[in-house]
């Protein structure tokens, strides 16, 4: 036979390349749908702005909601003065609580404390809470 002129190890190398290439192609064809199927739900991450009624936040109180799939807290520091922060503690990611008596945020995990401006007052958190834009538009609070 003609191809007997090739030494067996060359033929084997050729076959390995062909089979390897085919297997890789098949793995990609099967892997891509699998990757997409398992890709995380965007969970409203594409929603740019969330609106809530102004009345849902008391004066001197806090209101928690989900914005872009993450917990956010809105404060009414004094009548008509609003602020919003990511409620995720900058230490290890627990969700901070609003403690109305001293008027500050307390993280239940390792007692991190944040002010109404988001600044660290004490405990292990390394950074202030991430601020989120919030504006008052008539009776609505527009977050984001």
């Amino acid at each position: 036979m003609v191809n007997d002129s090739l030494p067996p190890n060359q033929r084997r190398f050729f076959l390995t390349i062909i089979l390897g290439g085919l297997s890789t192609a098949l793995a990609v064809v099967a892997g891509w749908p699998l990757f997409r199927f398992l890709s995380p739900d965007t969970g409203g991450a594409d929603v740019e702005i969330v609106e809530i009624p102004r009345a849902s936040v008391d004066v001197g109180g806090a209101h928690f909601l989900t914005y872009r799939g993450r917990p956010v807290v809105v404060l009414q520091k004094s009548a008509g003065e609003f602020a919003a922060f990511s409620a995720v503690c900058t230490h290890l990611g627990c969700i901070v609580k609003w403690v109305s008596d001293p008027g500050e945020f307390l993280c239940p995990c390792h007692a991190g404390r944040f002010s109404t401006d988001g600044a660290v007052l004490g405990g292990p958190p390394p950074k202030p809470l991430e601020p989120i834009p919030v504006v008052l538009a008539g009776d609505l609070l527009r977050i984001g």
Partner: protein
Amino acid sequence: MSPLKRLVDYLDVRLGVRELVRQNLTGYLVPRRANFFYTLGAVLLALFSLQVVTGILLLIYYRPDAANAFASVQYIMNEVPYGWLIRYVHVVGSNIIVIALLLHMLSVLFMGSYKKPRELTWLTGFILFNLSLALCLTGYLLPWSQLSFWATTVATDAAGAVPVVGEMAVQFLRGGAMVGEATLGRFFALHVMGLPLLLGAVIGLHLFLMRRVGISRPPFGPEYEPPAPLLSFRHEEHPDGIPFFPHYVAKDLAAIFFFLAALAWVVFYAPALFIPPAALEPADPFVTPPHIKPEWYFLWAYQTLKIFPSKVIGLAVQGAFMTLLAVLPFLDIGPERRPAHRPLFVTCYFLGILLMVAISIWGHYS
């Protein structure tokens, strides 16, 4: 020394992997004349693995309660990226598995491979066949469509024909008087946990028996001779055979890819084949849609129940037929395996297949 060789050396010292490879792959010789039908077991293993993978993926989004099941399946089909693909592969795969099971069983019958010493291999295979059908039946309910609901109502109702305990059996299957939330709960548990675990264990036993006894020599060709009567255990060897790896594995892979291609063809070109219109409406316990039929592989059973004047007789005929199949190796004890030397068996075999096909077609159009 290459890293691969170092790894193999490491494992070889500890586990003797080279000996394992020699015994089970390169030095394991299988019959030279092994035909296409000998690859069906490997095809079934591959298809079942695919069902496990797609099944686990579907579980991520499926919700097993009557209020949400249908919507969750619609969500998988319409919203989840490639959800339709995963679901179709699972649905079509189940049908292809039944085809492969039937071919595997029919070829084992035709070649008389169920005969001594392989009676137990047959018996475990027969159990696998029934477990697979049970998986199909329980899976059919899960989408909670009109089709699911009423096909399950009809199927579970058949058990009611059993004398004395029939009514109780129906209620036990359904978990209540009618198909409902309770039925979905138990079918879901069976479909995703109970039956797959059992199936896995029995597949292990089936493979152990097949490997321990040795694969049979195909009963064809001039050089085939019926073996001498077996008096003590002997592993069937094929000194003139071909190595399992790579020769036979290549054959197996060819057959596996053939079946996968058939599956892909249905998924992409005839996706509606196994999903009739009644599967697109949510279950409504108060409205029975017209012309509810079970899946094609249950049509023979459905039709036999209708042919006989009483359901008890119909059920008894089915039971007798299945029992006959189960214990066939213990009744048909002659050593002859060559089809040409078993005219009576082969006649019954083909008439039986024809009868089954005819009854199924009748059931389809009735």
